[in-house]
C-alpha cells in the first residue's frame, strides 16, 4: 500500500467514524434496570433474586458495581461501552486493586482489555463502596495521591 493510499484510507476511516458519532450520538448512562438486565444475561446462573442485589452506580452513569444477594457469588463490574455494556464477574478470590482518586474510585484488574474501571463517586459513596469491596474481596486499597 503506497503512502497516498494509506493516507486516503485513514482519512476515510476518520470521516466515517465522525459521521457515525454524529448520526448515532451516545451518552453512556447506566441505570439499575440496565445493570440488572445485563448482569442477568452475563451471569444467567446467578440471576435468581437479582433484584435484591446492591448496586452502586457512578455519578456519570458510566460504571457500576453490583453485589450479588449471596455474598459467596462475589460481585459484577458493569461499564457502559459506547452504547453497549460490558460486564465482568469477580469472585471473592479474584484480584482487584481499589485506588481512591480525587473524584471517586479506580478499580484495577488483570483484564487486558479492561484493566481499569473508573467510578465517579462523592467521598462518602467512594468510602462506602471501597469498604464493601474490601470486605467481600481480597482487594487491595490504596489512598489517593496527595
Amino acid at each position: 500500500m503506497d503512502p497516498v493510499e494509506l493516507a486516503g484510507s485513514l482519512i476515510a476511516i476518520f470521516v466515517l467514524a465522525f459521521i457515525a458519532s454524529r448520526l448515532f450520538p451516545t451518552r453512556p448512562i447506566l441505570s439499575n434496570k440496565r445493570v440488572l438486565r445485563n448482569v442477568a444475561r452475563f451471569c444467567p446462573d446467578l440471576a435468581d433474586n437479582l433484584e435484591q442485589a446492591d448496586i452502586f452506580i457512578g455519578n456519570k452513569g458510566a460504571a457500576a458495581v453490583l453485589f450479588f444477594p449471596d455474598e459467596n457469588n462475589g460481585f459484577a463490574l458493569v461499564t457502559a461501552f459506547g452504547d453497549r455494556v460490558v460486564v465482568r464477574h469477580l469472585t471473592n478470590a479474584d484480584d482487584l486493586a481499589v485506588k481512591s482518586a480525587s473524584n471517586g474510585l479506580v478499580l484495577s484488574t488483570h483484564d487486558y482489555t479492561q484493566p481499569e474501571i473508573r467510578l465517579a463517586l462523592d467521598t462518602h459513596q467512594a468510602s462506602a463502596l471501597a469498604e464493601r469491596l474490601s470486605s467481600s474481596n481480597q482487594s487491595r486499597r490504596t489512598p489517593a495521591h496527595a
Partner: protein
Amino acid sequence: MLDLPAPTQLAVPAFILLVLAEMVYGWKTGRARFEGKDTMTSLIMGLGSTISGALTATFSIGLAYWVWSNYALFDLGAAWWVFVLAFVLDDLAYYWIHRMGHRMRWMWAAHVIHHSSQHYNLSTALRQTWTGQFTPGILFKMPIFLLGIEPAIVLFCAGINLIYQFWIHTEAIDKMPRWFEYIFNTPSHHRVHHANNPRYLDANYAGVFMAWDRMFGSFIPENTSEPCRYGLVTDLGTFNPLRVATHEWLGIIKDVWSARRWRDRALYLLAPPGWTPDGSRMTSDMIRNAWRAREAANASKAAD
C-alpha cells in the same frame, strides 16, 4: 503464474460508500445502528489486516505454489469451469477453516477479532484479523492445489467469496426469498453466526453456500423470538486496536506458560476456546448445555 486482479482491493471504494449508505439508512429508519468508536476500531482493524496481509502474503503464496508446482496430480489449466470448480472447493475449504477458527483456540486467536464488536453492520464486515498468517488455515486449501488448480485462481475466488460476505453483515435486511435463504449465506444466517446468545453459538460457518452447514450439522436458523445479540461471550472492554488484535494471543501465552503438563499446553492451543484442565472456564458447548438445562428447568417449573 496467472496475473489476476485482487477483487477485495478493487472493492474498497464500494465498501466505504456502502458503509456510509447503511449509516444514513440506519439513521433514517432505525434499522441499522452504529457507534463512532466501534466503527473506527472496525475500520482500523480492516486497514491493518490489509497491511499485515500484504507483508506476509509472500510466504503463504510461495508455499501454495511450491505444493502446486511440485505435487499437483493434474494440470487443470485456467478454463472457465476451473474457476467455477475452484470457487466451490474454496468455499468448502473456507467452511472448514472458519469452523476450526471457532473450535480451535489457536485459530480462534486470529478470528476472534472479527467477532469482537457488539454491533452488526457493514463496518463489522471489515473488522478483520491482523494475525491470520500465524494460524494453519492455508493447510485447508492444500487439497485444492494438489488437485491441480493454480493458487492464483484459488486466491481470486477467495477474494470473490470475501466480497460476497460483505453485504451479509447487516441488520437492515431481514430475510431473502426462501430459495435464496436455502442455498446461500444471507444476513439472517450470518446474524446467527455473530450472535453470542447460547442458542446460536458456533453455527453457520458458511462463506457463500449454506449447503456445508446443512451437510455438516452446523446450521441453526434465526429465531425471531430470540433476537441476536452480538459480540463475544466475554465482550472486550476496549476500542484500542492493538489490544483488540492481541488479547487472545496474550491469553494463550499466559495459559501455556502456566500449564503444568505438556498435554495441557497442547490443549490450550488445540482445544476449543474456553477449555481449561480444571473446567473453570466455559467452552461454547458448556455454555449451550447450561442454557439447555436452564430452559428445561424453566419449562418444567412452568408445567407444574
